[in-house]
């Protein structure tokens, strides 16, 4: 595989830059939802973009660590970014929520056989405290999206059946545009829900 930025036939760097930064910004924005804190100290004074290009740099240094059998390059980079943020979080004194179960998994890259996208879940889970009534959150969201069929279906598909975007679109025969619009409405509901359940009732 060529890693030459000029070699767009192999790696579409424009695609990677845009999608990776969008993913990371979105992921980071939602992170403090249930932390009861306003800080984004896990960024350690840097911008999201700094982490994105650091992750790309690590890949360019050691491209052999990326295993295409475990997912696309974008997923590999997303997974590495999420790991960096969790590692930063573990080092912060004010952190009292993140589980420390990933503190010693430097070799996770080599040992785990699961796909990169599957591995994002447990890392992200570590951000969310256990002492929240997630069933109450579910019920709250269900109530809030009632009557909005597309948003209800998306919530059902993703939350209950763990479907991905494409699967929801196929299963509920909706267009991509309808999905995106409904997902935006669902996100508004989720944000509202986060504020409702947040310990400090703050806006994020």
């Amino acid at each position, binding site marked *: 595989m060529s*890693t*030459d*930025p*000029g070699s767009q036939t192999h790696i579409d*760097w*424009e*695609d990677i*830059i*845009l*999608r*990776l*930064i*969008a*993913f*990371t*910004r*979105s*992921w980071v924005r*939602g992170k403090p*939802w249930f932390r009861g804190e306003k800080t984004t100290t896990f960024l350690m004074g840097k911008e999201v*973009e700094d982490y994105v*290009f650091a992750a*790309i*740099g690590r890949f*360019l*240094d050691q491209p052999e660590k990326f295993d295409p059998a475990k997912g696309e390059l*974008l997923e590999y980079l997303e997974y590495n970014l999420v790991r960096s943020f969790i590692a930063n979080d573990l080092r912060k004194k004010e952190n009292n929520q993140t589980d420390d179960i990933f503190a010693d998994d430097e070799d996770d890259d080599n040992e785990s056989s699961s796909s990169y996208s599957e591995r*994002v*879940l447990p890392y*992200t*889970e570590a951000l*969310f405290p*256990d002492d*929240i009534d*997630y*069933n109450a*959150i*579910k019920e709250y969201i269900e109530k809030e999206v009632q009557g909005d069929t597309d948003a209800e279906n998306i*919530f059902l598909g*993703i*939350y*209950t059946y*763990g479907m*991905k*975007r494409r699967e929801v679109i196929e299963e509920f025969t909706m267009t991509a545009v309808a999905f*995106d619009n409904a*997902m935006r409405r669902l*996100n508004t509901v*989720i944000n509202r829900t986060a504020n409702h359940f947040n310990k400090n009732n703050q806006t994020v």
Partner: protein
Amino acid sequence: MSKKTNQSKSDFVNLFISTAENDSSSKEAAKAFLESEGVNTEKLVSEGLKKIKKMQMLADAKRTENEMQAAESVKSAAIEWVDNLLGDMNFSLPELVQKEELSMSFRNVENLSQDDIRNILIRHFTLKFMNQQNNSEK
């Protein structure tokens, strides 16, 4: 925490990840999301490509340097090997030529000085050790 609560948490976190995945589901979706956040995507891409090109050049230079260092260490090992070989009282060049299949390199052996023989052997064993190293890494 009960298993049921654990599952509810995972389901919720999945929903949270889906939001990020949806915001980055395609180049167009990512662009729309970033622009809604006030990001200048054209500038982001052009500066990003420059950064990547620079990082790629640095990574290539580092790789070349590592390869050269590795080659130097293999050459040192080959020199030591050849010097030990030549210093051995029982050393026989014809036997070595046959064993290592070096007849082409030593076809004019009568015209070669001791230094020439040493240099040919060092070159031969450097290549041999490098091949062995490459094969063991595969």
